[in-house]
């Protein structure tokens, strides 16, 4: 990708994504951390657009920024005020070391490997191709995913159902 727009877009979005992800680590207030996390999600969606993955980008906004972040906000609101800080455990230093090591390893590998890169432009339209793939080649995983969603939904409802209620009644 050589045109100016893609380059500027990439660097801006990458800075936004990584910067707000770092913000999630640094910020003390949990709600602000969630807002920064959403910004990071939106930045990733922007990066998808620079990769001409429009369908995935929109799904990213819909699911991550619209749904999962709201789930997280609900979880925060359902737990007490006292636990709304964003402090670290005693694992802070080992965590930092491990995370740095993993990131370094991945970065090192990705820089040092000689990837076989195909010279082709971005995708024209991805939505219909993804849809066809989902319903033909990947139909079994697709069905499994829907079963998984159902199970997860039932599991979540069962887990947090009011204490008094039981199925015998």
């Amino acid at each position, binding site marked *: 990708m050589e045109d100016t727009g893609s380059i500027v877009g990439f660097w801006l979005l990458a800075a936004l994504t990584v910067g707000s992800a770092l913000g999630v680590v640094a910020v003390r207030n949990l709600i602000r951390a969630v807002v920064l996390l959403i910004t990071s999600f939106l930045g990733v969606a922007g990066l998808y657009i620079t990769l001409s993955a429009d*369908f995935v980008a929109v799904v990213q906004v819909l699911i991550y920024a*619209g749904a999962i972040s*709201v789930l997280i906000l609900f979880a925060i*609101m359902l737990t007490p005020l006292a636990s709304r800080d964003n402090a670290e455990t005693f694992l802070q230093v080992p965590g930092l070391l491990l995370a740095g090591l993993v990131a370094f390893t991945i970065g090192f590998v990705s820089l040092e490997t000689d990837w076989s890169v195909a010279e082709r432009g971005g995708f024209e339209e991805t*939505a219909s191709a993804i849809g066809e793939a989902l319903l033909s080649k990947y139909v079994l995983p697709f069905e499994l995913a829907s079963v998984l969603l159902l199970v997860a939904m039932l599991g979540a409802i069962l887990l947090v159902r009011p204490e008094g209620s039981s199925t015998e009644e």
Partner: protein
Amino acid sequence: MPFDPSTGSGLRAGPILAEWYDLRDLGNAVGAFLDWIRDQGAPDWVPYVVSGLIGVVAILLWVILSQLAFIWIERRVIGRMQARIGPNRVGPQGLLQPIADTIKLFLKEAITSRKVDRALFWAGPVLIFMPALAVLAVIPFGSGMFLTDLNVGVLFVIAVASVNTVAVFVAGWASNNKFALLGAMRTVAMLISYELIQVLALLGVVLFAGSMRMGAVVDWQSDFNTWVLFLQPLAFIAFIIASAVEIGRSPMDISEAESEIVASYHTEYSGIKFGFFYAAEYIAAFAVCAIIVTLYLGGWTAWGLEEWVPGWLLFLGKLYLTFFLFVWTRGTLPRLRIDQLMAFAWKFLLPLVLLNVLVTGAEVLIWREGDLSAGLALPIFGAVNAGLAVALILGWATFMGHMRPEHRAKRAVLTRSWARYITLHRPRQTSP
């Protein structure tokens, strides 16, 4: 006139004159201007940036003017509905009232309470603007008049609107006000539920049009000389209701139920920061009406009328009519309670729109596989879906108990028979 989709319609002979002064397509003028820039020897990126700027400025101008018009329309129409006049002092017929209000909001002090989360408190009014404006990028306002025609336009509209929940929550939480927090939680719960209805309602449109591009949906409707409204009445009703929830319109204005939680998530905002919320509400209404017009009411086309009347005028007319619908409900209906609204989404609308998707899918399959002609298939589908909509709504309402006789308090109760509820007593006169 017989219609043949492969060759294009006899009605749509194409623009008679596609010169830059052709008002039916303002895109022509922009194109001519860009060509002129290219002729001056500017580098390639200049026309690209200029065209984007023109689009953005045009949409913003249009949106702001429309929003002022919306405010005026709403206040006058509701005034009429409430047996009063409405604003008529500032300017002719009170037309300048919204501008006067804007100036007033600018001049008022924007109070920031001491215990608010300052950064997020400021972010709220800004964030609330983004989704509504972003939606407008994919709306085709007229022939060739759109900022960008995304491949996934329909999904984009839903996705961007879902960011609204975050803005509302941020505003409500940062205010450090209990009414604001209550309102924010209500709004978030509500928007999440009705987002699902919106997606499922739009699925029917996408199934028929075969594309998620907004422009393609409009073209499909104009190609087959029909509006999706006639093919998808149930989805249309569901989408209107879900949209009313999204823009906080009565009877779903629980998000800003002023008789219960004061002003909900913007209770603590004053001055121009409140003005931002107020404006965003109308811009969101504009965006939602534009989506409805584009996807259900044929967009800027109207059975060949766009050959004679500029398409963007048709679009505008439909937009205002759609908005009138929302004003009408606001002027006439009381508000539901939050649990009733959620129950309505999950127990009433969701099964109906799911069934609608199933039926629509079957119809599209029959149409494609059965090689039916559009002139035969579409009227049949429309009739079937309309009948289905009526039957499903009435049947499901009966099943859910909304039509039980005790819910139908007859007027005769008070005027003639005094039956079920109110009894009249005539006690013996007792001497004091």
